[in-house]
């Protein structure tokens, strides 16, 4: 089995090998998404600080372009920030995003805290990536400096590792 890996600069993010805490968050004002619904396939959780800040825009735009690559590796992508679902709806429409943005809005940042990636002083999430395997275990996590777009290569490598991993059940 490929060794799970974790890199993060703040040291508080849940490391690889940890079960991913389940949650249910709104993806639109009237729809919620529950993490455990995706059991059986890998999930990419992309926490980011805010909808309209320039680097986030680039990061989410990049992931939007790479959806085909993520999907070909069997994975579902979920974006998460503390913005509300109406804000997400406007941002998503503006950037033509084709994946859900989840609102970690009330209680604010609760899910980010569960994953150890909430920035108390600014009241926003870290720019943090988690790749969760089909059994709901964190396979890879990465926290990027907040102003730096982490790109997609780490996610792709982690997903490929999962795909090449022999079944160990």
């Amino acid at each position, binding site marked *: 089995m490929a060794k799970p*890996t974790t890199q993060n600069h703040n040291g508080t993010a849940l490391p690889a090998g940890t079960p991913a805490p389940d949650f249910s968050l709104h993806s639109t004002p009237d729809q919620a998404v529950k993490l455990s619904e995706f059991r059986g396939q890998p999930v990419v959780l992309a926490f980011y600080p805010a909808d309209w800040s320039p680097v986030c825009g680039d990061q989410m735009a990049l992931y939007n372009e790479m959806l085909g690559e993520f999907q070909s590796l069997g994975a579902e992508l979920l974006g998460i920030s503390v913005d509300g679902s109406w804000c997400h709806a406007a941002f998503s429409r503006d950037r033509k995003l084709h994946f859900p943005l989840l609102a970690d809005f009330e209680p604010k940042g609760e899910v980010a805290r569960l994953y150890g990636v909430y920035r108390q002083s600014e009241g926003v999430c870290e720019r943090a990536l988690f790749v969760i395997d089909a059994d709901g275990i964190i396979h890879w996590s990465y926290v990027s400096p907040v102003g730096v777009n982490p790109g997609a290569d780490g996610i792709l490598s982690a997903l490929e*590792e999962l795909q090449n991993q022999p079944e160990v059940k």
Partner: protein
Amino acid sequence: MSGPASISRLTLPDPKRDHIQGLIEAPIALVEYGDYECPYCGEAYSIIKAIQERLGGRLCFAFRNFPLVNSHPHAQHAAEAAEAAGAQGKFWEMHDLLFENQDALDDEDLAQYAAALKLDARRLIDEVLAGAHTARVREDFRSGARGGVNGTPTFFINGVRYEGPPDAGALLTAFADALNQTL
């Protein structure tokens, strides 16, 4: 996970598949991942021209496609049109025309540029519409995604991602650092 060695190979010019200006043996290899409809790539285009003039034979430049199709509705066809022009031997001529006309990139414009370059415009547009070069553009995109491209334009100098601003002075300084000598 892939180590730094494989990443740098991925982001060095590859004479077997890349469109290259300059000699592959040149001491500085610059690879750009770009999008013909991206305004920052448009700015980078003239900067690269100036740098090429300044460095001459010391620079090998390769351009790979990284169209952000959700933000830029014409970027994919523009990229494929450049590849289709390449199939008729005029990749760089089309590349230049596209960057010089970033606000006019619909299919009719592409056909006009092909005619202006005395290419078989019908064949070029047929190839674009049939998706003859889609896989090639996707291959560029995928290599960028794997190499650490996180937006456009992204540059790699001798295989290493360039993190500085896309201006001539900063790029020249980075080249000098890569060569460990002043230019």
